[in-house]
């Protein structure tokens, strides 16, 4: 991972805007921001952002690579699309935030203990296993993502909710045994693998 990071640093030598353009999903839109700030003001999680989207775009242009990629900010995105709906320049901000998050993770720069970063990974792992999300396993792995004792504490805190869901048959302990999934797991996994390969090849190629 850190090799990859080093590789990118050397490749772009300070031109972070170009690095983002080449490697981040929808990153070629960053240059189009005119710093009006409507995204920053529209985000429901706004107060929790260390650097709101418009500022992140400015930081990218100012070459603040580490500060951007190590930021917890992008992980605040709840995909509510308020920013996209309002952006006067049509920047797909939600996607850029996701893209930056993915990229920072790939580079190994994402903040280590960012809970949403962990959850997002768990979610992905969960769904790719069988093709469908196993809500119970996802929930459990989430509770235990910070270790066993933390997990017990969280699980206890959440037990009423679990009970409510159980009572209304919106959750079943049976799911732990396997639960839902795609039948063509083989094809499903092969497809994902291929998609991953293509994407990695594309990124490796870009900007060179």
């Amino acid at each position, binding site marked *: 991972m850190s090799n990859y990071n080093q590789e990118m640093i050397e490749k772009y030598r300070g031109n972070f805007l170009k690095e983002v353009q080449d490697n981040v999903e929808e990153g070629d839109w960053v240059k189009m921001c*005119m*710093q*009006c*700030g*409507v995204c*920053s*003001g*529209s985000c429901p999680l*706004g*107060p929790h952002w260390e*650097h*709101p989207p*418009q*500022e992140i775009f400015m930081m990218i242009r100012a070459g603040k690579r580490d500060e951007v990629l190590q930021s917890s900010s992008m992980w605040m995105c709840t995909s509510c699309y308020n920013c996209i*709906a*309002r952006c*006067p*320049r*049509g920047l797909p901000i939600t996607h850029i935030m996701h893209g930056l998050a993915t990229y920072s993770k790939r580079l190994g720069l994402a903040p280590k203990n960012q809970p949403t970063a962990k959850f997002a990974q768990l979610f992905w792992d969960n769904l790719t296993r069988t093709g469908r999300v196993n809500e119970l396993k996802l929930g459990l792995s989430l509770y235990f993502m910070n270790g066993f004792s933390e997990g017990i504490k969280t699980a206890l805190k959440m037990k009423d909710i679990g009970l409510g869901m159980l009572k209304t048959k919106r959750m079943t302990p049976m799911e732990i045994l396997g639960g839902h999934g795609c039948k063509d797991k083989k094809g499903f996994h092969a497809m994902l693998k291929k998609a991953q390969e293509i994407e990695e090849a594309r990124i490796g190629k870009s900007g060179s």
Partner: protein
Amino acid sequence: MSEVIATNQTILVVGGGISGQTAALEAAECGKQVILVEKTPSLGGRVSQLYKYFPKLCHPKCGLEINLRRIKANRNVRVMTLTEVTSISGDAGNYSVTLKTSPRYVNENCTSCGACGDAVEAEFDDEYNYGLGKRKGAYLPYNQAYPERYVLDPAIVGTEDAEKAKAACKYDAIDLDMGEEETTITVGAVIWATGWKPYDAGKIQPYGYDRFANVITSVEFERMLDPHGPTGGKILRPSDGKEAKDVAFIQCAGSRDKNHLKHCSRICCMASLKQTTYLREQFGDEGKGTVYYIDIRAIDRIDDFYQNIKNDPNMTFIKSKVASITEDKETGNPVLHGVDTEGYHRYSNPHDLVVLAIGMEPSVPAGDFPMEVVLNEEGFVELDEANGAFFAAGCSSDALDVNRAVQSATASALRAIQVVNKVAGAEG
């Protein structure tokens, strides 16, 4: 209607606002025959609805009075109101133009004595005041209207009100049998001065123009200042009629925005700066203005106007496109939410009143032109050889301030004259 005489040396000017008036007069004062058509019942256009002009803070009606006097005195200009162009065919130097004139239901006998207006009862939203006030079904569009003749709202024709109006008129000026008329004329060149309309503020949903009484547009704000406007010249909140001393101005309301108008409407920054002076004028030290902006475009030598207002301690400038407006239910105050991008500061600022510096949209949408015309992506008419002798003047060519619109109109008058002079030369 008397016969309209026009030849291929006649210039047709479409639109009776400041640009159309200028184009018509400048050509006529060069000795050319001009037909000036206007869709509404009177000349004047958008500028007649403004309280003051920047940067001199003078009154648009003053220049309008001069132009009207020039029109009254010039026999080369024929004015046709309530008239629209429905089609143009032919080539530069020889166009056949079809005009559609809607009935005014009032003929030349009208002395504008006002008896019909007193007689009728039905009231309608007053277009002149952007619907902020009401007018009668028989009305003079505004106090400086030219022609100085009353109009009947078509909605009262066929009702008792129309009969009342007719009965009240001593001069046999009300003619309820008037119908739509179509005229076909030949002209050498067309000057298209159909101007702009304020962008539909309701479409800018986060600002709640359609939901919050105390969010208004800049053009409506201008009407408020008119001593004879809907609030008698006072800056009052629509919700409760209280004086609005703390006013927010939101720039680029509909402009520079791909969700609305892609272009910069150019005038709005200066217009808001001008409007901040109204607060001072009316409330002195108690008047407070806050301008939320992306870039202040106080272009050229009038930048000092901006500098002066910036130095006024009661005026605040925040570099921010406001994200959304909510309403404080108790006070009726609009609350503006967003981020001051200079250093990242969040705000939720209540104000007495919000004025949206509304963008300029071309009046005529692409596709509604009476002939094929080269437009740019924003819908403004380009100066292009393919347009033949169809020349845009003023805001149909770009978002322009009055000064530039008049320049553009004057230039278009020469372009039209070049065409008709060539025709005249060819015909000896």
